[in-house]
């Protein structure tokens, strides 16, 4: 056969490993912790292997079942999907390490299979080149995410998860409706085939409207964000981290992919609308975050604001496509790492104090220095200060806006940055105040602190490897010709 190491089907491993891991955790719940960790490490290795393969040999195609489009399903990996897979693996690793000591025994056996199935769905989603297959992965992801969000078992969690479930089901249905129209217009489900056959007509417009509406709802762009803050704030910390870092980005990834490959051929002004809503999301989400009295809600509203930045890339990309899209991808990566770190850190603070009221974060800095460091580092990236991944992405976005003299968007970004600084210092400032401890603090295991710091460190490190990562984004030139100007 002569299969060399590099030719190993890493992409298939990325799907099958978490799937079998999830099944095994369900079958043997008593060892689910070990099984889960082994699986996640395997996923990390597979993502690295796939990365090596793609960086070495370029775009990766796989015909599942050997049929190929349009009859069968294809997997497709270019720089964009590769980075999504890698950041997923990295966040998964951090969250899994964190979860070992976070959940009690009875919750371990519930958490691991659901979480590994969610990971399966995420990997399958980023690998897929078939729009109906994307629908199935979206549903798998949505149901797993909702189930995980209920794990705290509180009344608020159930109400929030119920809203989340309805929103995600509605979004998937709208997406499916769009898929139906695309299939019946152009006779294929494969993105590449659709991209060739696509032509602008009224049905294509309807499909675009339905798919965008569904995915925007799932991505929680203002004003469709109503479900996000309660669902993310009431979930267990590792779940909040995954929801904010990865699940929201997955639907954005599909929107981005379909926009680039298919819908950019429509002559639309929707990009302006996206930019407008994104701007409101930045301002409004940041203001709401500033108003919150609980850390987890604050962090959740910060996600609403950061999602707004992603949508700024749409209007900016018209003139400076590659720069603006690269900025968006960079933001996805850095926000994924920073936000998961922040939620994990918030979970530690909650565990330590027994509550997550910002006003009562007494003298945490001395007790949990690693956690506070993680929160601060993640905050640096969220605010967009150098050196961090967040800085690179916001800098690129700002550049694209300045080149085009889009002063409105420049203003929004600057205000958003100032507000982000305000809400992050609101937490950090409290953490350093001198107050006596009114209660017995909870014990926070070291793994939980280091997991948060690992992810936050990743967000900072992204700031040092800009040129390498931008080179990876360019593999398969998902954003068309051109180059990024740093």
């Amino acid at each position, binding site marked *: 056969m002569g299969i060399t190491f590099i030719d190993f089907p890493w992409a298939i491993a990325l799907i099958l490993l978490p799937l079998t891991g999830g099944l095994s955790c369900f079958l043997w719940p008593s060892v689910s912790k070990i099984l889960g960790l082994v699986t996640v490490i395997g996923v990390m290795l597979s993502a690295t292997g796939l990365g090596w393969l793609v960086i070495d040999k370029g775009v990766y195609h796989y015909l599942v079942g050997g049929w190929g489009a349009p009859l069968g399903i294809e997997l497709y990996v270019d720089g964009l999907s590769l980075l999504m897979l890698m950041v997923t693996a990295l966040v998964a690793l951090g969250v899994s390490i964190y979860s070992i000591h976070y959940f009690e025994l009875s919750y371990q056996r519930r958490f691991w299979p659901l979480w590994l199935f969610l990971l399966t769905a995420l990997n399958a989603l980023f690998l897929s080149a078939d729009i*109906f297959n994307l629908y*199935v992965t979206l*549903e798998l992801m949505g*149901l797993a995410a*909702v*189930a995980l969000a*209920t794990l705290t078992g509180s*009344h608020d969690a*159930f*109400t929030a*998860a*119920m*809203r989340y*479930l*309805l929103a995600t*089901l*509605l979004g998937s*249905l709208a997406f*499916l*409706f769009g898929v*139906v129209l695309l*299939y*019946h217009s152009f006779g294929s*489900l494969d993105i590449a085939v659709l991209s060739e056959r696509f032509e602008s007509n009224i049905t294509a417009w309807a499909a675009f409207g339905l798919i965008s509406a569904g995915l925007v709802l799932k991505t929680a762009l203002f004003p469709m964000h*109503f479900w996000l803050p*309660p669902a993310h704030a009431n979930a267990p910390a590792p779940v909040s981290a995954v929801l904010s870092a990865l699940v929201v980005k997955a639907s954005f990834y599909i929107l981005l992919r379909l926009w680039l490959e298919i819908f950019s051929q429509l002559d639309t002004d929707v990009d302006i609308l996206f930019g407008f809503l994104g701007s409101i999301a930045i301002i409004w989400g940041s203001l709401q975050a500033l108003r919150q009295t609980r850390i987890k809600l604050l962090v959740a509203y910060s996600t609403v604001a950061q999602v707004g930045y992603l949508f700024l890339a749409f209007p900016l990309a018209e003139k400076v496509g590659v720069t603006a899209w690269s900025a968006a991808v960079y933001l996805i990566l850095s926000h994924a790492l920073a936000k998961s770190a922040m939620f994990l850190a918030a979970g530690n603070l909650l565990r330590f104090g027994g509550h997550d009221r910002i006003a009562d974060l007494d003298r945490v800095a001395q007790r949990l220095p690693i956690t506070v460091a993680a929160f601060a580092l993640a905050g640096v990236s969220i605010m967009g200060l150098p050196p961090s991944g967040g800085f690179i992405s916001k800098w690129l976005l700002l550049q694209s806006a300045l080149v085009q003299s889009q002063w409105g968007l420049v203003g929004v970004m600057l205000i958003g940055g100032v507000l982000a600084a305000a809400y992050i210092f609101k937490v950090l400032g409290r953490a350093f105040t001198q107050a006596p401890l009114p209660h017995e603090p909870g014990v926070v295991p070291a793994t939980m602190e280091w997991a948060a710091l690992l992810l936050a460190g990743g967000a900072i490190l992204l700031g040092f490897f800009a040129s390498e990562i931008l080179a990876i984004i360019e593999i398969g030139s998902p954003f068309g010709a051109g180059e990024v100007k740093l």
Partner: protein
Amino acid sequence: MNTVFLYALVGIGLFCLGLFALIVQAHLLRKILAINIMGSGVFLILVALARRTEGGIPDPVPHAMVITGIVVAVSATALALVMILKVTESSGQPEFPDEESK
């Protein structure tokens, strides 16, 4: 030929009726019914339009897609129904609490 578009239009009707009910009905069980009916509408369009083939044998791919969709729908419904019971258990009514605006 007309049958195709007749049923496709019925499908649109179901989708919009379901969406309307999803928005205006407060009872969670009805919201889940609404989601199911919206789904049926989309499936109906998918299969109706698959009969536009010349030979009389309809396109089988949409049929397989709908079977997949039906199974996904029953999975989502089962999860949603258990969650309704939980929400009702703690709040006493199968609705979203009023004070939060949607």
